[in-house]
């Protein structure tokens, strides 16, 4: 309660109470992100529990995707981007200079907004990750991994007889599930999803949401979404971002039923955004 009071005073740039009791897998402490001189995130502090779905919501440009991309250091690719603060995954600081981004990203997979399969066959799309990380020793093993991943992504039934067809020839929803299969083929701990359904129709969206719910058993999932219904449907924890600040985080039903911050309330009721 103390903290909530403080938060109101300093406009949200202050730690929020971790919301879920289980041991957090990812802990972010005072994360600031700058694009050149412009500050995109102000002191984000958030705990992300293991084997749960955490959704990041907020209006466009609020920094939720920026935060997501900090978790597997995709922001390293942007020359002008600078990250301060501390993000730990399983107790290890991922911005430690000793950390190898390649092995970090193998542990923290990512699914993007627009389905982006490689212009190769369905098989090659999924096989690429295991192959570059030398996760398999033989062709047969590779085939097993590919089929297992496709089946976990709920795609195997639809494509089992045309694994050699180009991945780009699938429908949008299938392509997105292919990208999920590609991500889980390298056995990550965490899957980051950046608005995975924004380019899909409602049926394909429902299919992906179902899949996210199934994947929760084995993976920790962080999902950025514009759809509050989606956040409500798939996630156990929700974090609301606004103008580079983490306004509020907590159990999903609590955020959607009894939000603490007036900004959260106006957003979920559709008054800002």
């Amino acid at each position, binding site marked *: 309660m103390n903290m909530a009071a403080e938060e109101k005073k300093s406009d949200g740039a202050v730690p929020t109470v971790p919301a879920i009791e289980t041991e957090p897998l990812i802990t972010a402490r005072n994360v600031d992100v700058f694009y050149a001189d412009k500050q995109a995130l102000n002191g984000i502090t958030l705990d992300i529990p293991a084997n749960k779905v955490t959704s990041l919501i907020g209006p466009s440009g609020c920094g939720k995707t920026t935060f997501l991309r900090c978790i*597997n250091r*995709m922001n390293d*690719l942007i*020359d002008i981007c600078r990250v301060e603060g501390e993000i730990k995954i399983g107790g290890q600081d991922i911005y430690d200079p000793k950390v190898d981004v*390649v*092995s*970090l*990203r*193998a542990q923290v*997979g*990512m*699914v*993007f907004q*627009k389905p*982006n*399969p*490689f*212009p190769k066959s369905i098989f090659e799309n999924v096989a*690429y*990750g295991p192959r*570059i*990380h030398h996760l398999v020793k033989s062709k047969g093993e590779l085939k097993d991994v590919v089929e297992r991943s496709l089946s976990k992504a709920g795609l195997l039934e639809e494509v089992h007889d045309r694994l050699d067809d*180009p991945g*780009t020839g699938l429908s949008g929803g299938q392509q997105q599930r292919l*990208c999920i299969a*590609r*991500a889980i*083929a*390298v056995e990550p701990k965490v899957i980051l999803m950046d608005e995975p359904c924004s380019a899909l129709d409602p049926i394909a969206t429902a299919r992906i949401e179902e899949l996210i719910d199934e994947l929760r058993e084995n993976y920790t999932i962080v999902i950025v979404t514009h759809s509050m219904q989606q956040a409500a449907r798939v996630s156990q924890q929700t974090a609301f971002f606004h103008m580079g600040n983490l306004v509020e985080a907590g159990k999903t039903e609590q955020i959607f039923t009894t939000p603490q911050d007036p900004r959260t309330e106006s957003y979920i009721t559709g008054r800002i955004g």
Partner: protein
Amino acid sequence: MTDFTVKTPALKRRHAAEKRFQWYGLGSIIIALGFLLLMVGSITIKGIGAFTQTRVALEIELPSNEFNLNDLKATNYGAIVKKALRNAFPDVTKRRDKRKLYGLVSPYASFELQKMVIEDPALIGKTTKIWFVASDDVDMYIKGNVDTSIDEKSRKFSDKQIAWVEEIQKKGDLEKVFNSGFFTGGDSREPELAGILSAFMGSALSLSVCFLLSFPIGIFAAIYLEEFAKKNRWSALIEININNLAAVPSIVFGLLGLAVFLNVFGLPRSSPLVGGMVLSLMTLPTIIIASRASLRAVPPSIREAALGIGASQVQAAFHHVVPLALPGMLTGAIVGMARALGDTAPLLMIGMVAFIVDIPTGVLDKATALPVQIFLWADSPERGFMEKTSAAILVLLVFLVLMNLVAIILRRKFEQRF
């Protein structure tokens, strides 16, 4: 009810403007095509003659007493050919006329005869009818390039020669055949003997060197600059310099080649090796710029997809981005090569402007190149070289078309959808 058929003046003006623009576009295309047709057409008409050749047959007497069977090369074959000509026209007696008579066949005739005798010594002691390459004057007359209405004194081919040629023609001892020598021979001072192969080989060898040097260097530079280099003041400076280099006149690269490759490194003058090196200096900026553009055209989502599952930057670049950009890179390289193929100035500076009869077989042999050959022939006074010039241009154009065709085929082969 709204009436959709009403055309307000503003709407009419808009439609008129649209129509007008389409006509402008169509007009410019027609003009461009017209000029292209004019150019190719006139070159073809002028050059087509070079692909045929006039030959004359002579009754050649090979008396065995003039031959030493152990040394068939010792015989004066020229005298034998001349004697055959005198026998064919016994009434020519004046010295000056005789010289004109000898001018009906190419000076190469004696070598042709020598070759024939060495290949088949059984000819000795017999009289045989043998076909020889006619001189360029006869060739030009047969092809209708001699204007007989001009006063005899001011033309090279005299009335007497015309009479002789017509007499030979009447006997059926004159024929026009496909000029295979044009494609298999090297340059010559005699238009009827000059061939394009030495220049063609020179160009092909230079371009091979140029491709082998500039393609790998160019694409690696482009990949590094586009995928790995940090975008800062230094990379901006490099980019500006590359763009400027692409616009530097080629003769400057020629001078650089002369100063550095020939004088400092001491590489052989007139060689396709140095030619290719100079040309690659010129094509490098083109290849780098085109390759960077095609790398930039690969959607960033592909890069992110690879990095997102833990590919290193090199893996993302070489497994995913470069294969997608390769068709564009190849196109850039071929465009650069096509420019290099047509460029003369830098080759002049490094001595590839020589009279080369031998056909080069390696990159260190002395050679010339197609555009230089065109320049040399265009500069020659003999009438026969005029059609050779046009024919050489045709060969160059065909070479260019073939290169572009290869580029299209390669692009089709490597193209992937994304």
